[in-house]
């Protein structure tokens, strides 16, 4: 029987598990012994459930908030999120695409005053260079 309604996050997680297993396949494995659960395993299990729910629910909540607050801000929101995990090239590409997709055709002055773009450039350490090029 099917276990999820579509190809999604869980598939990617399971692909990751397979890769990790293959990567460490040379490590000698201990015989797995099945024991009854203890209070500690129950606490740890509950912690994992809460953590996974948080990982899935919080980003989806933020995602929805971003779309609802400003209908055109969803792409910029993704760009901003990417910039926060310090991947400058992705962030720069995301800014460019967000500007194009939102079809606002911002002038250099407007871009300079756009708070999202400024925060992105600051986060990628490109702010000074950007000001220099703009001038």
């Amino acid at each position, binding site marked *: 029987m099917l*276990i999820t309604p579509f190809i999604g996050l869980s598939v990617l997680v399971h692909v990751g598990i397979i890769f990790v297993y293959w990567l460490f396949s040379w490590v000698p494995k201990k015989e*797995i012994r099945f024991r009854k659960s203890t209070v500690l395993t*129950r606490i740890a*299990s*509950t912690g994992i459930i809460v953590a996974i729910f948080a990982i899935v629910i919080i980003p989806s909540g933020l995602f929805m908030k971003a779309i609802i607050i400003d209908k055109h801000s969803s792409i910029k929101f993704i760009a901003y999120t990417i910039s926060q995990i310090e991947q400058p090239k992705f962030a720069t590409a995301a800014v460019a695409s967000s500007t194009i997709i939102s079809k606002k055709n911002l002038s250099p002055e407007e871009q300079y005053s756009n708070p999202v773009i400024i925060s992105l450039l600051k986060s990628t350490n490109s702010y000074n260079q950007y000001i220099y090029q703009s001038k």
Partner: protein
Amino acid sequence: MKISLLVPCFNEEKSLEASIKSCLNQTRKFDELIFIDDFSSDKTPEILASFGDRIKAYRVPKNTGNKSGAQEFGFQFITGDVVVTTDADTLLKSNFVEEIENDFQNPNVAAVAGTVKSMPYNWITLCRAFEYTIGQYIHKLAQSYMNYIFVMPGAASAFRVDMFRKYITFDHDTITEDLDFTYKLHLKQFKIVYNRQAITYTQDPTNLSDYINQMRRWFGGGWQNVVKHHSIITTKPIRAFELSILYSEGLIFSILIFLIPLINLWFALLVIIGFFQITLIFAIWAAIKEKRWKLLFVPFPYMILMYVNAYIYLEQFVKEVVFRRKNLVWFKPGRVFINKIT
């Protein structure tokens, strides 16, 4: 080791003969083949009789109404150490019993989950073949590494008979008995292994109406079993991880894919394009893996089925978990002659 086969049948005239032949044509023969006719009204009894003493066939006095009822009736006739359970619309690959026997050489193994493949017929079975490839070669493979098999497939499972009689039994209180068996095995700390080489070919729904009804049974049964065995989630961290990621993802993203178009159509389109691209990557992989090149085109129909699946997933959640309207009515999809689809 004595290996028995148990196959429940209800109006299976279109597929039964091919199925029995595949069971008889094994490199390592079954020691006992038991077929249970669940009070069929078609030519099933005649087909069973035509195989003479090569198989044992029993007829239930009154239709049991579901697969597990017929299985329970048949279990009393089993004399083997290991029982293979499959369906009457399913063909076993010729090395199936050999593979199963190898796994049971390990005395710690209590059950073996085989691999199910979908017989090719049309775009719906193509999508199902894609789902099976992902579900088994990614999900189940990773689960076997983590030592937590989520579900034993109804069309390709094997159990130690003593263990089954003592600990598993038939409750008939959920509509997906295979998932019920699996949860019970985990709760009793039994070891389940997944064998990628023990392959069966099964017949899946060939029209959308049958597909929807089968998904209702599968997802509805999935929720029923979560409610029934809810305590399993907190017994082991790995179970907590697997079950919470599967169910939370299914629930939250099923809601999201319906909600996003209502808020922002443009962004919904981007989400669908994103899903399409991810599906395409996996479809290319599945096509290479299965050497079934039609799978390259599966992302197109799969985008439609994704919405169908998500809708049924939410519908069954509301019915089974929120309102606790337990549906125990068995659904049997229409059959196609197997010689037409192989």
